[in-house]
């Protein structure tokens, strides 16, 4: 046992030393942090320069200069190349749902099918040559924005209304693939004929949708005391309505057709004539990759023009020999409309049409006579027939 004095001195010395050690460690760490920060900044500056250069150089020139392997690697590194990521991964990450018949749901065998699902399948067929190479992410409607913002998904097809706020905050919207409008469904026994009679009614609605916001606007606009009941998932919303907890349910009008089909008492329900909003349903991609955004737009245009030109999954092979120049260009038999520059096969539309079909086939299979029985008239017809389904020309 040492004398107490020694121990005290020893402790004091150790404490001094420990303090000195702490200062040294802290300084060292700060230095490391600063230098690595500078390093990161330099890399960031270099990347920004590389991106700017890559953008300035014409795409064709970029391809011509590809013989320099190092430069190519740098360009790939410098830009967020989602197409390359998808092709390396071998699957397209598509966010959708599984609880809305017609648009996205599971069939008896557990396959994900629907109008929105087929649009994902078309993109997968275009970029991977295989419509089934999809990694589905089933999310809640209210999770759509954060899912896109995180950049984890390649494509979101989930009855999403194109709005300005979403365009700014969520991602880029491709062409409108379905024109809808919000309405109300109620039970016939209540005897009401217009949505403006919904004063003091309880209305079921799903969270995180434009329907929810439009409902608030509508009740304020018309001075109606509507009690909203908000559920997280569509199927709970429908159950609550069907059980009579709510007097009416509100969502996009086309979806009611699908709901009614599932009810055991379809004749007792009535879709009110009022359309309280504009709901252009649109596929969308995350912000930040213009080339990927272009690809999705081209695929959507491709399936629309395939219908306009009369190319479908049955006659696609024969149509390659068509006399029609536009058909030949669409199928990659002659000329081009930019598909190779953007990184797709020249004949990618053959894969898309063969595996998924043209717009009309997709519509009929899911929403039309073979699906939930929604007549295709008015706005969702091709522009040729007086509708609004239209896309930028492919050339």
């Amino acid at each position, binding site marked *: 046992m*040492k004398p107490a004095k*020694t*121990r005290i*001195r*020893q402790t004091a*010395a*150790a*404490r*001094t*030393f*420990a*303090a000195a*050690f*702490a200062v040294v*460690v802290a300084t060292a760490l700060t230095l490391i942090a600063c230098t690595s920060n500078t390093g990161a900044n330099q890399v960031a500056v270099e990347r920004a320069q590389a991106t700017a250069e890559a953008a300035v150089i014409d795409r064709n020139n970029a391809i011509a200069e590809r013989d320099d392997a190092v430069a190519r690697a740098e360009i790939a590194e410098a830009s967020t190349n989602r197409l390359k990521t998808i092709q390396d991964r071998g699957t397209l990450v598509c966010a959708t749902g599984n609880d809305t018949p017609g648009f996205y749901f599971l069939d008896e065998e557990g396959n994900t099918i629907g109008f929105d699902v087929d649009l994902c399948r078309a993109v997968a067929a275009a970029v991977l040559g295989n419509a089934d190479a999809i990694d589905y992410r089933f999310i809640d409607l*209210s*999770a759509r*924005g954060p899912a896109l*913002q*995180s*950049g984890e998904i390649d494509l979101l097809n989930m009855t999403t209304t194109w709005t300005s*706020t*979403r365009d700014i*905050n969520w991602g880029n919207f491709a062409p409108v693939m379905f024109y809808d409008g919000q309405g109300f469904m109620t039970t016939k026994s*209540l*005897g*009401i004929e217009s949505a403006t*009679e919904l*004063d*003091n*009614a*309880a209305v*079921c*609605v799903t*969270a*995180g949708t*434009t329907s*929810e*916001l439009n*409902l*608030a*606007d509508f*009740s*304020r606009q018309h001075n109606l005391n509507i*009690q*909203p*009941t*908000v*559920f*997280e*998932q569509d199927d*709970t919303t429908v159950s*609550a309505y069907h*059980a*009579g*907890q709510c*007097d009416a349910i509100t969502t996009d009008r086309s979806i009611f057709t699908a709901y009614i089909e599932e009810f055991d008492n379809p004749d007792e329900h009535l879709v009110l004539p009022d359309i309280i909003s504009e709901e252009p349903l649109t596929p969308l991609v*995350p*912000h*930040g990759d213009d080339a990927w955004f272009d690809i999705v737009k081209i695929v959507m245009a491709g399936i629309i023009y395939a219908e306009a030109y009369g190319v479908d999954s049955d006659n696609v092979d024969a149509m390659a020999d068509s006399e029609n120049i536009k058909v030949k260009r669409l199928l990659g038999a002659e000329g081009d409309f930019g598909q190779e520059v953007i990184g797709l096969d020249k004949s990618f539309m053959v894969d898309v049409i063969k595996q998924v079909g043209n717009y009309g086939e997709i519509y009929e299979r899911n929403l039309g006579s073979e699906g939930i029985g929604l007549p295709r008239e008015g706005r969702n017809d091709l522009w040729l027939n007086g509708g609004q389904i239209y896309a930028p020309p492919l050339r």
Partner: protein
Amino acid sequence: MQSILNPGGIPFWRNVVFIQWAIQIVSAVVVIAIVSGFIVNVATEIHDRAIPFGFSFLDESAQIPIGESLIDHESSDSYLFGFAVAALNTVKASVFGVILATLLGIVIGVSRLSRNWILSRLALVYIETFRNIPLLIQLLFWFLIVLELPNVREGYIYFDAVYLNNSGLYLPWVSPMGGFWPWAILSFVGIVGAVYAFKYLAKREIETGQPSYPIIAGFAIFFVLTIVGLIIFSPLEIVIPERQEGPFGRLQGGARLTGSFFALLLGLVVYTSAFIAEIVRAGIQSVSRGQTEAARSLGLNTNAGLRYVIFPQAMRVIIPPLISQYLNLTKNSSLAAAIGYPDLVSVTSTMVQIAPAISLIGMVMVTYLAMSLFYSAVGNIYNRLTKYAGVG
């Protein structure tokens, strides 16, 4: 030869003081590195991906609907107000849930130890069933049962005043009138008086052995003052639910327990009470059997033994895990969105559509943290008051 690296001849790496300091510093560095890593990552991603962030949106009109609220809410109110309304809904579910789950949990926990075989087996079945089924499933189960009730126009009516249907339970309620505050003060005096009378009489009963009826006396003081106040001030008006005009026949006035809130409360209470029952059982069993026998040999009957000897000692074991059950219940109430109760998570997931998600989720986290810390603080204060004097 002594040096700063080698005080007292011991190598510095074997010096206790040095080792302790070094461990502290290394841990601090690791913690700071991880936390700052997260912050830097979020900041970088917000910048790179242009994710909206900020709090300036809070003053703007939210234009979202909220189905039920403790305070009046309109869709044109601000985000901040909507957030507060939703937070209050969560607090409401939490407070009611905590009170009811505690009462039910104590009853089941004590039944579990009952010498009545059927009662203790029933309690066991209850505990093992509800503790082992995921809460979300239970919530949906209760909600579907609520939906099975007839709708608001065809539901059950009792005494022309109580309505039960799948939109909820509607009860007559009271609304304050002119003389409310004088009456409230008188009732408060009644409560204080009742507590003091109870304490005094209970002490007397223990010390002298004379039956003094402390519970009856306490309630009597409270009720006499309250009822006298009711007669003098006529402070309350009874409001009976009434049907609204029009085809929907919804009810207004009185108190309403909505179907969603009812299902949520039922789910939370049943689930949490199963855990609380086990905590209560463990607490009671932690008190040595000798204590029960000692109480008995002093002439205390079973109830008195439990109340004066067993519970005061069991409480010290029960309180800490009980508080964490309260925290669980509060956090579990966030599953409410699934069954249509507009709690904090449900409402903010609507707001996220138009407002910055990261800011809102951050606010939600802070709000839950604040609620949890509040429960913890209350629990810790109680714990400090009841621990053995001179120990720990």
